[in-house]
């Protein structure tokens, strides 16, 4: 990613104006804090370990949920991708579950599991299931037909067909779905924590807000934004590095 000097002008100007306006007493309320105070608050939270603990909790739930959701998403996606008949028979059932907003499941997960990791993981898993399933289905359907013929000629059993032919061939596209799921998992985990679950970064935000600590609210918010950006940047790099030079097999097969 290129970071041109011009791109820095706008955010720096905003920060400077914000700081000056706060210092000159233009804001009468404490509701907005100001950049240097936010920096101090963020530093304090990092030093005393509160931010790290919250980060571990959020990431634990997000990754756990994503792993489960992606696992089932890939299985269902492969099954649907291999059999058009199965996919069209299940179409109405999946399409009637898909529009349910993941946040609507928060109360149900709360009812079943109470507070804690499990309820958060379930909601994240539901949210991550859909993009992985849809992308996998498309990727498997897009596999070069001759590869499948080879598998048939070699009389591969189903498991070998999946692990030796289908997964490697579909992986570049499936990875795009996984990347999408990773950023969704972080968003959903934070949302669950904000609405109900008393752990992690989202809860840290709520506690800071209820204590009228605007500096901490902004510190958490900026940290969450940074983590989301970092996660996406790393996965994008991994994708380019692992699959970039191969080109996209499944795509090229069309």
């Amino acid at each position: 990613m290129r970071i041109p000097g011009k791109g820095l002008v706008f955010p720096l100007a905003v920060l400077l104006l914000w700081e000056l306006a706060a210092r000159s007493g233009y804001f009468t309320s404490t509701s907005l804090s100001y950049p240097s105070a936010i920096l101090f608050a963020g530093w304090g939270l990092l030093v005393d370990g509160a931010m790290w603990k919250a980060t571990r909790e959020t990431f634990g739930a997000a990754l756990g949920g994503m792993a489960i959701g992606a696992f089932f998403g890939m299985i269902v996606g492969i099954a649907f991708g291999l059999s058009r008949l199965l996919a069209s028979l299940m179409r109405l059932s999946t399409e009637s579950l898909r529009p349910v907003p993941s946040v609507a499941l928060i109360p149900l997960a709360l009812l079943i599991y109470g507070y804690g990791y499990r309820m958060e993981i379930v909601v994240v898993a539901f949210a991550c299931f859909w993009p992985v399933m849809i992308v996998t289905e498309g990727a498997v359907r897009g596999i070069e037909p001759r590869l499948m013929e080879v598998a048939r000629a070699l009389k591969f059993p189903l498991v070998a067909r999946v692990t030796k032919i289908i997964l490697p061939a579909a992986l570049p596209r499936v990875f795009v779905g996984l990347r999408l799921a990773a950023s969704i998992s972080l968003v959903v985990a934070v949302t669950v924590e904000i609405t109900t679950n008393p752990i992690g970064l989202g809860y840290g935000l709520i506690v800071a807000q209820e204590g009228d600590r605007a500096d901490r609210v902004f510190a958490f918010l900026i940290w969450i934004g940074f983590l989301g950006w970092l996660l996406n940047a790393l996965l994008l790099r991994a994708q380019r590095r692992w699959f970039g030079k191969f080109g996209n097999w499944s795509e090229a097969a069309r």
Partner: protein
Amino acid sequence: MTLRGPMLWGGSVIVLLLLIGLWQLGSNAGVIPQAFFPGPDRTFETLSDQFWSEEFWLAFSETIRRMFFGFVLASVLGVALGAALGSSPTLREYLEPTLELIRPLPASAVIPVFVLMLGLNERMVLAVIAFGSIWPALLGTVHGFKTVEPRLYEVSRILRLSRLEMIWKIALPNSLPDIFSGLRLALTVSLILAVVTEMLSGAEGLGHNIILAARSFRSADLFAGIVVLGAIGYVTNAVLERVERHVLRWRNS
């Protein structure tokens, strides 16, 4: 393949009915705990009860109203800002890196900031929904403007169109598919944020209803609420797709 079109559709209806039947059987036999999963019979009973209750329709209309106004506000602002950014490379150079940083921010994470600035009220709810849904609309528009066939821009220069004319007559119509895919995402985000803000602020609405139902262990009410929210997600998306097909009908002919 031997089955096709209508037969497959019929088949998928039968599969759905079978699954609902299994859910009912499991619930009757006690395999699926009734305390959490009330079974289709009780869920549909609650749904039909709600159909006649004024309270339900009040909550329903409140949620829809928030979602709708937040979405419209976000679409208008998002497309306008996106058009400004998309048609000016200079503006893009200054603002795009900042947008890239804001984009991955979870929309619900800005709620505490808005609560501190505006308080726990209706204005805050609308501001959060609009702020969260504006990004997909804006980024979709920018992307659409960037990928317009460059020769069309040349044509507009030769025709000496003013910038506004160029946007209105050339860039905007050609970016519509990207704009609509941004709007579809914005629509989903607006429903999610309406539900989340209702859960948090206690404002009347379906989000508030389902969290109350969970806290007082009324699983049938909770399930009915989830079904209604799923239906809202489905119908609003279908309406937007209809609008898209209507607006873009000139493209295929």
